[in-house]
């Protein structure tokens, strides 16, 4: 799941300052799950902006709120076409993808980000999320016992642990487990310690060709069809 955090209210206020009619657009998938932009947070932000307005006189806006099931598919955005026609800006509480999807669908309208999209992760407990994957496009979890060193090792080294591991913690952050020690322990349990001995050549993430595109449908050459 994509994890994000709502932006501070002052930043949002500043962003919307010059638009009178604003649609706060929530997202019913990842942003709901990570408490950043589901219907409840949309409503909360809406209320907060209105309090700011009525108590401090922070501009005069008219807000609408709506939460789509997902913002990252164009079909969902068709559901708000009418509403969008009446507003001056969309404040999207979708992840960065949602904001861009809105911008792409409604080219004439400002699409503003209401959250800081942060990482891909999992729930640790209610209200706490941990990063787990860097989307590097070349998954090595088989060799690292299902623990990603790129995200979970602060230094992101591929051949750990480094000399900074101490009592199972990382020298850069004493509260954090050393990812490589975790890898070691799990490999030991799996009786696959030999994987520790392999050398992984460093990777140059800058060379990943962005933006990436994945095509899952198989292309068929029309010429090859019978008939």
């Amino acid at each position, binding site marked *: 799941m994509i994890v994000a955090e709502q932006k501070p209210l002052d930043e949002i206020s500043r962003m919307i300052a010059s638009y009178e009619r604003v649609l706060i657009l929530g997202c*019913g998938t990842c942003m709901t799950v990570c408490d950043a932009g*589901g219907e*409840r947070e949309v409503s909360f932000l809406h209320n907060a902006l209105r*309090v700011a307005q*009525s108590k401090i006189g922070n501009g*005069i806006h008219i807000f609408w709120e709506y*939460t789509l*099931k997902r913002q990252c598919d164009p079909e969902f955005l068709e559901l708000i076409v009418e509403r969008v026609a009446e507003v001056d800006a969309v404040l999207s509480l979708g992840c960065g993808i949602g904001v861009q999807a809105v911008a792409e669908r409604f080219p004439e309208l400002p699409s503003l980000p209401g959250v800081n999209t942060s990482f891909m992760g999992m729930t640790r407990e209610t209200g706490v999320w941990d990063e787990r994957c860097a989307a590097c496009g070349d998954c090595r979890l088989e060799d690292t016992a299902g623990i990603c060193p790129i995200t979970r090792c602060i230094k992101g080294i591929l051949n750990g642990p480094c000399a900074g591991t101490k009592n199972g913690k990382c020298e850069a952050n004493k509260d954090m487990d050393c990812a490589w020690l975790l890898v070691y322990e799990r490999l030991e349990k799996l009786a696959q310690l030999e994987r520790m001995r392999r050398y992984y050549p460093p990777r140059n993430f800058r060379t990943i060709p962005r933006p990436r595109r994945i095509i899952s449908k198989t292309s068929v050459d029309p010429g090859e069809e019978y008939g």
Partner: protein
Amino acid sequence: MDSLLTDIRQNYPANRTQRFLADHSLVPTCQTACPLHMEIREYVDLVAQGKIVESLQVIRSGNPFPSICAYVCTHPCEDACRRDQVDKPVAIRALKRFALEFGGDRLIQAEAETSHIEKVAIVGSGPAGLACAYYLRKFGYPVTIFEAHSELGGMLRVGIPQYRLPREVIDTEVQRLTRMGVEIRTNTPVVSLDLLFDIGYKAIFITIGAHQSLRMRIDGEESPGVIDGATFLREINLGLRPSPGERCAVIGGGNVAFDAARTALRLGAREVRILYRRSRVEMPAGPEEVEQALEEGVEIVFLVAPIKIKREKGRLSVTCIRMELGDPDAGGRCQPVPIEGSEFNEEFDTLITAIGQAPQTPGGFGVRLGRGSTIQVEPGTLATNRPGVFAGGDAVTGPATVVEALAAGRLAASRIDDYLQHRYPLVVKETRESLTGDLLPETVEMVRRIGRVEPPILASEERSKDFEPVELVYDWETATNEARRCLRCGTGAEILSQDRCATCLTCLRICPYHVPYLDAGSTVQIPIDQCQACGTCVAECPAKVIVLRKPHDRRRVTEELEHILKTAAGSKLKPLIVGFCCQYGLFGTGTLASLWRGARAGVWIVPVLCVATVEAEHLLRALEIGAEGVFVAGCGDGCARENTASWIRQRVEKVRKILVQIGLQPERLQTFVSGTLSEDPAQGMDNFIEQVGGLYLASVMMQEVKS
């Protein structure tokens, strides 16, 4: 400014709004068990909130004579109460009595207007007859009650002793009926129905009860000094004072036997002994009654039956035999079997038989009789074999209970109405589902134990001297606390639309009772039979898709805030302070009562089901409608649930952070949790009001400087 305050929220399709407005609660087990299907959960909850008058309204709408039930109902609701699975059932009957006494039931007047010309005759004035008369008058029919005795009430009057049901209670209800225009003919035994039809009645309801005592069929039963329980009680209730002598035996184990025994004590008998042929487990009398009889000094001998009575020298020599329990019969009851050679003799002055009664239907009625001389009727319509003749109550069921008789009377009134209007019986179906299923052990473990408190009763020495009512009424505090024990079964949370559920699993993780679960299809389910309706998940659901099943619970906060906006926001005399308070603490009698400051101090209260249901956005909304300060007051350890305050603290913290970003002082938001503050919450409250007042003044001055 106005457009700012109108709340434009999500615009959803109309059907979602409709679903949002409907009552999705389930019918709780207590209500299902009640023959009148009274809205017990609702009126008990109103008592818990201290809204006694409203509670009385709910009671009155579901029961024609609640004051009578409040004293003598056998309360099948309590037997079905699910609180019993945690500790003890809610004391529903006693709470009803409290609501009646404190809600001003005596002052309530019933009215009725005549809108039909068809006259209806009611034969017998027991609870069934009275209830039928009440509802027929409400429907607008002219009604006449024919009663053989000199006074109305049937067994209420001639059976149940005064120390359990004071006569003023019956009198008040009868007076109401007379004011409603019911014609009453006492001392008028009806022997033929033809006559009634001849003089113009269009329909007849027979409710002659079951007054003929069953005979033991043993030698000497006719001797002087032997009397049947129903007759014995009737004589006393009609003003005679028979003397039971020094030593008195009562045969039987039902409520009549116990009433007779306790009455005999009150008439001066030194020793009263109940002889019952089975054991305690099989005894049909209610536990309270047995308990109270024992306290008063009644002795109970089990597994003994009389086999012969002989009158000698003015006393009764009774030969008894001991019994043992044989195999259970088809009905599951163990049949007593005499033990050979165990006979023994006892001497008594009086012997009262109370082994059951049967109806005695005059042959001239021409209605078909069934087992045990009961009148045969069609169960759904109460119609007898004669057109226009209906029957109900003990006369149809055999000796039963007041509440069943009332239900029969109510049903008869509707069916007679249908009959007279030539309608096919209109059956009003309950559209809501009934709650079934027990609480799981895991749920039971999490529900806080709160012991049941019985209403006070007269000390036993006081009691056996006269016919004063034995049971007293709760005081306000005890009643509200007892009422809070209700689990509000069937009103819990539901996922309004599975489609919008993000399956984030928040509810599953935070429910204090571990109720929601993930089913095999990866869908979150909130089983209604386990949910304790605390509303925590409602406020925490990030998709806002969980709602409480009762529309009132759902809309309450919004509506109250709108109300405050309309009434209070205009007045600029005092800075407005909005407090979200536990509905049970503040208006009931909990410690929170001390926080109440009244609207004059500028403090407006929004009562909430539980502070755990107060959402972060509610706090903001209160500020937006003009509140200068907002507080949340909940119960700490006194709460019926665990740890509710921690949730509200988190939300308050979240809103405070936002306030800082907005540029408002976070002190404008306070939580008061009773029982956990080192300082007195009332003092804290006063400080808060003062502080908010100061902040308000400062902001006014700032504005003046600006302009």
